[in-house]
């Protein structure tokens, strides 16, 4: 019960750190989507680029998060941003690229050719085809990529507490340093709950944004 007591006593700070965490994850996700989705769509049109882009994103994903923070610190220190929220958000944006680009690419590639032909037959040009046919069909898979990215980012943002980015990781960091179990456990549990909650919410969004026709198709397949 010590954990509950700790959270109750420091409610103000808990809320502030949660807000910081949400801010970092949300901002990085917005930036990552703005880069990743257009890039994913672009590489469906340029096949020889696709492999390189996805491989590069794959390599970034392989770099351990704390090592990436370490590698970026000297570079961003040149512009005076080695510590704090900026390197954290840059890292989060980089990590989110792989799930977002890959899912966008796969989703648009997997649009059945017959549907594309039907659109063409109705006299759609390339833009209309993309806007009216390809993107609506791809949306559920793209959102699934965003969901993966969001859950991963919550975990990495917790590690970013060590480079002074704030967020709920601060409780884990300071709790370990002070050997204060209540603090560690409340930090760890809050971060985990946050990740599970976001995972569930994004699953809901995924369901909501699935076009009705595809939902029906899935249901009848089951």
């Amino acid at each position: 019960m010590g954990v509950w007591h700790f959270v109750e006593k420091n409610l103000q700070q808990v809320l502030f750190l949660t807000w910081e965490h949400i801010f970092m994850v949300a901002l990085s996700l917005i930036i990552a989507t703005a880069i990743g989705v257009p890039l994913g769509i672009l590489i469906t049109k340029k096949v020889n680029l696709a492999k390189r882009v996805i491989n590069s994103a794959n390599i970034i994903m392989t770099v351990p998060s704390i090592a990436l923070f370490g590698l970026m610190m000297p570079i961003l220190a040149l512009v005076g941003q080695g510590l704090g929220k900026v390197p954290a958000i840059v890292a989060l944006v980089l990590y989110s690229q792989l799930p977002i680009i890959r899912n966008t690419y796969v989703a648009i590639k997997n649009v059945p050719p017959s549907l594309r032909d039907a659109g063409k037959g109705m006299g759609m040009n390339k833009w209309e085809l993309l806007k009216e046919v390809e993107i609506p069909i791809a949306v559920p898979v793209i959102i699934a990529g965003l969901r993966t990215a969001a859950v991963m980012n919550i975990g990495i943002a917790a590690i970013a507490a060590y480079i002074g980015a704030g967020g709920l990781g601060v409780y884990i960091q300071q709790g370990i340093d002070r050997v204060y179990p209540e603090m560690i456990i409340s930090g760890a549990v809050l971060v985990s709950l946050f990740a599970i909650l976001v995972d569930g919410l994004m699953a809901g969004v995924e369901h909501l944004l699935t076009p009705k026709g595809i939902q029906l198709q899935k249901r009848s397949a089951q």
Partner: protein
Amino acid sequence: MKKLSAKMYNMLLLLLVFACGVALEKTGTIAFLTDPYNYPELMRLLFQHFYLVAISMAIATTTGLVIGISLTRSGLRKYSGIVMYIVGLGQTIPSLAVLALAMSFLGIGTKPAIFALTIYSILPIARNTLAGIRAVPVSTIDAAKGMGMTSVGILFNVELPMAMKVILTGFRVALVINIGTAALAYLIGAGGMGDWIFSGIDMMMTDKLLAGAIPVTLMALLADFLVELLSALLVSRGLRLSEE
């Protein structure tokens, strides 16, 4: 046109490597790594890191395979949904939180770190083993049955070879995450390359920080590559051909 873009890409890569080299020299990382005084420390930390990864991956692979395979057996199949749900939930929990929780219940040192790394690595392996075996076509299994294979024979000669690619993907994900998380194990007193990274951040010593971060990165990239090679060896040729 295609040739030009490929040439530019290669040129860019070369420049990037060159710039990295200059940066390493400028920040003193090369001097730090080649300093004979730091050599024993480097070897000790590398060994610690390797030890954490090897032990936890060995336990996790065996456990993950056993869980995944036993959930596809006819008696336990009905529980596979709920177990996979729990595994999925476990995967959303951040690695730092798992380490922190392991520390607050088991204390500091190598043992809680190995425990946390093992638990965290079981999840992708078990999930992919189950998914891989489930994806084996029923008709193939029926054919094997028709040839008079026992269920053990089917498992080893049909199901596992066909699921090998998916299982190895799970293994690769687990291994790469494990190497990255082992760098955090320093925080709960298990040592490893994280020692230099976190000390470097705390002391604002760029050379020490990079001397820790670069080996970990290389280790993860190398592991990723080696598992890819392994999958070229272990996945049967027919399956690889059918994919192309």
